[in-house]
């Protein structure tokens, strides 16, 4: 795209080194701090002595492991629910025509734009009334909302690519709506469904605001809010353990990302660009 003139080379190398350093050095520093013996936390040493002391202190910490388990439960469940809801809605938007369709589509798209904090006020009161406050249920339902706009649009763009003739010919063969959906349409949208599921999982895994507010029972806290509660406001902060805990909290999403990167980027871009 750009000719490799002297000027461009200078720009290229300066950018590569500076932005590359900015992106990767902090991560290295996090790993470095976590892998130091606790006695060396405050030294500038860079991978001098590697010790699993900090990691062990996190992995054997029952409370933090409970948070981890809670996060896994909530994220898997909400991701599953969100994918289901988005798939049905996207299929409906793409292949059916009915009154109110445009209005509902607009409403779904708008839901991205409502400030989460203001919704949270009433969700809190609502969950308090219905007795869901403090349970996983409150979080699960709220997290579906995060995925709704992007998820529906990602999947709608998948369904839009499937020719209507496919459905028509199945109908002529006598297949009902349910069979068409289950046997013809859904299998073709699986890549899209995976990217929506990942999106939903990462959203729920990383959320702090809702989990800090809607989960009042500390035994049910998710990792993000649990770690904040554990480490913020501590007088003498144990940075080694904090970095180790951060790494532990980052591992599940990173693993998912590494293995399913292709779907992920697809979903990320398709969802937002197409609206």
């Amino acid at each position, binding site marked *: 795209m750009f000719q490799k003139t002297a000027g461009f080379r200078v720009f290229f190398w300066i950018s590569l080194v500076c932005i590359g350093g900015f992106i990767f050095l902090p991560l290295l520093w996090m790993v470095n701090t976590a892998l130091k013996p606790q006695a060396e936390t405050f030294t500038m040493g860079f991978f001098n002595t590697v010790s699993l002391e900090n990691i062990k202190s996190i992995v054997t910490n029952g409370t933090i492991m409970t948070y981890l388990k809670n996060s896994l439960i909530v994220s898997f469940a909400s991701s599953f629910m969100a994918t289901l809801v988005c798939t*049905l*809605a996207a299929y409906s938007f793409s292949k059916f025509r*009915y009154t109110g369709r445009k209005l509902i589509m607009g409403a779904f798209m708008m839901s991205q734009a409502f*400030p989460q904090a203001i919704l949270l006020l*009433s969700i809190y009161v609502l969950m308090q009334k219905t007795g869901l406050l403090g349970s996983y249920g409150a979080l699960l339902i709220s997290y579906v909302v995060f995925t*709704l706009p992007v998820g529906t649009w990602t999947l709608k763009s998948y369904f839009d690519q499937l020719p209507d003739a496919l459905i028509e010919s199945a109908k002529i063969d006598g297949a009902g709506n349910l069979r068409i959906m289950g046997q013809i349409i859904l299998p073709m949208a699986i890549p899209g469904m995976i990217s929506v599921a990942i999106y939903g999982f990462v959203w729920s895994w990383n959320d702090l605001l809702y989990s800090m507010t809607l989960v009042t029972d500390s035994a049910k806290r998710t990792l993000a809010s649990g770690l904040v509660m554990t480490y*913020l406001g501590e007088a003498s902060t144990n940075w080694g353990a904090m970095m180790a805990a951060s790494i532990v909290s980052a591992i599940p999403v990173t693993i998912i990302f590494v293995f399913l990167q292709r779907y992920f980027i697809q979903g990320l871009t398709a969802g937002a*660009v197409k609206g």
Partner: protein
Amino acid sequence: MKKGSPLKSLTDKQVGFMLVIPGLAVFIGIILYPFVNSVIMSFTNRSLLQPNYGWVGFENYAKVFKDPYFLQTLGTTFLFVLLATAIPFALGLIWAIVLNQGFKGAEFLRGITLVNWIIPGTAIGFLWSWIFNGQYGILNGILKGLGLLETGIPFLGQTGTALLCVVVARTWQMLPWYMAFLLGGLQGVSLDQIEAARIDGAGNWRVFTHVVVPSMKTIMTLVFVLGLVGNLQHFDLPWTMAQGGPARATTTLSIEVYTTAFKNWNMGKAATIGTIWAVLLACFSFIYLRQVNEAD
């Protein structure tokens, strides 16, 4: 399939509508109802500490607009939103151009760049608090090592630098996101057009400003607006790094709504701030929707 027969007797329109019911229920229950309810709440003196509350009309609004802290919060929010969108956007674009050069390892770099964006905001907040730590942080360590400083600067503990620290952390988190979109945009730029411009004697800069930027206009605007909306909502980093402090220096609207409601238990006032905020957000969303409709 048991449900086969009743479903078959339905018209396509009815089936279509039924499919959208779960999503619609979630939308109404968790977005529309809470939103309307919060707006209504802004006209009451509701508190989480007392079960009874009543109408107060525009009293909350009058209080909020008279509150000098509210103006400060608005200012902090605008500054944060602007910086935390513009900086990662610019760096993300440069990074996308670099990775688009297709050198060996570019694919790999793109992959690990995205890790920053994937990991939880809590972890990112912890990491940057550690880097900016006033006593033992690596940034102070480097500055002292270079002989630039005698004693460490409490970057997150002083009002002048705290917000900037949060912006840096947010930049680190979001740069990959901008990069992913803009790289997609770069790859869509027509090479024929670039070729044509080159024949007309255009250099790199002219190619960038006259071909690349115009053909990426839609995606750039979209990403920028989405970035603004995201930052206007952002909560994790200012909270984990500074809890809105010191002296409210990192208190953005989302932090303010959270603390007003769940630390001071004043739901009415929190709802008022939230409603004002929603109006601001609606303006951004309007631009976003228009862009999306154009792109469709």
